[in-house]
């Protein structure tokens, strides 16, 4: 268990943790501001306004 000393684990947590959080933040920002997602989000945001009529079936999905 030499390779898994307290200091090693702490060192890994502090370095990897930092970079994965930065990478994640960048990834999410790219997803959110990706131009092609704009219509998708706009549709989603309005879609909940009128949804009580029951599930969509094949014919009214077009």
């Amino acid at each position, binding site marked *: 268990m030499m390779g898994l000393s307290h200091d090693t684990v*702490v060192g890994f947590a502090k370095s990897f943790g930092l970079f994965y*959080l930065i990478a994640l933040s960048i990834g999410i*920002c790219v*997803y959110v*501001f990706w131009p092609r997602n704009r219509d998708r*989000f706009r549709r*989603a945001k309005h879609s909940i*306004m009128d949804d009580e*009529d*029951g599930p969509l079936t094949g014919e009214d999905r077009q």
Partner: protein
Amino acid sequence: MITRFTIAERQASLVLLLLMTLAGLAMAAAGAGDAMGVHGFIVLFASLGLIFVVGGALYDPAPTEDRSRAYYDDPIKVGIVLAMIWAVIAMGVGDWVAWMLAFPDLRFDGAWSGFGRMRPVHTTGIIFGFGGNALIATSFHVMQRTCRARLAGQIAPWFVILGYNLFVVMAVTGYMMGVTQSKEYAEAEWYADIWLVIVWVVYFVLYLRTLARRNEPHIYVANWYYMAFILVVAVLHIVNNLAVPASFTAAKSYSLFSGVQDAMTQWWYGHNAVAFFLTSGFLGMLYYYLPKRANRPIYSYRLSILSFWGITFFYIWVGSHHLHYTALPHWVQTLGMTFSVMLLVPSWASAGNALMTLNGAWHKVRDDATLRFMFVAAVFYGLSTFEGSFLAIRPVNSLSHYTDWTVAHVHAGAMGWVALITFGAIYAAVPMIWRRETMYSWKMVEWHFWLALAGTLIYVFAMWNSGIVQGLMWRTYTEGGTLRYSFLDTMIAMHPYYIARGIGGLLFLAGAVIGFINIWMTIRAVGSDSKVLDVPTESEAGEPAVPVAE
């Protein structure tokens, strides 16, 4: 409700209930003389009762509804009613123990009624009974509507709702018998914990299968919050409750963790229970019911996604702020503190998004108490997340920790944010689910709103005062360097605030009782005609007429 089951589904439910009856019988026999035996009888009688319900309708005619055309709302109805029943019970117990702290004679000398046993009855009853049922019920509503698809299953939703309530009943009755594993918000013992894992996995699978059926290209953001709630709570629950039972025929178990690891695991769980049980799922409610009720789309959909990931990834790390000045390594404490402060950004983004959605529609907030519930909830969400970040800072924590300030903070969140958003969501959902024009009485909604708001303010201000007085008295020294105040001195100083808290809690409870009556009268359709929708109904006779050969 059973008539909506096909004959095969009724038979499958009976088999399932029979298995549960046998499990209850085994628990009752093996655990005789222990609390586990009592729980065995609870499982046994609950399952037997349901066998009579299902069995009694076994030979009723098969359902005629077109399932592809209708949402499945029966389990939501039961979930909402159960949430309100738990609200009244658990707020009642909460107010009782609040008065008990001011006047200890109110314990009435029972072993079961001591503060140490009734306090977890209150917290479990509110968080898991009231909050959990409301989350499950509204998630069934939101997932179907936003996916434009029916729930993926007929038995699974019932298994989730009823199985979950069986867990809460076992937890709460266990505490009164002295069963506890001494982990805050995770006091229930090993067999109840295993049962909850089974129920929770079924819930998760049900959610995924319904999403897989969706008729919308994008999964609406409210679902993301509900999914985070289900997934992370599963992880937290399993890890924190890892334990070895002392015997398979008794309730007592020993945690796998000890010392500071136990403390860290517990508070990693404890604060993420606040994050993913009491925040994430309720944000899901906010992002669906607030735009819907205001009839305005959410102000910024992109911001809702950014704050989702912010909340998810920052919250996971903040638990160690509960362990400042302990044996926990200093850098882990600092990590918790830093992430707690950063968490303010996505939290305020969510609160701001909600308030900006209402900007321009303030007349609706003024006129509609249901929307006002959600508006005030968003304000309290912003306030209590600010307070949470502040209290997590080490020197602030040195004053606040172990005092009533923490209690004030928790209740600003639990009453002002969680309960108010839930009441708002329930008042928005009940007329939709039961197909009514409005609630039975809008005046009762107003009464509920003002009682709840007044109760919350009285409660929170009382505990702020009490906590800061308490904290300051604890750190006051004489010139000789000794502590100036004894423990008893602090108790005497806090007494008036404890009475104020009892009054605040009573107002909040009164509001919930009025709400329950109002919901019940709406369900009973007193003084209203049921709303006709242009959708297929249960019976063929109720189908809208279709003109023939025109």
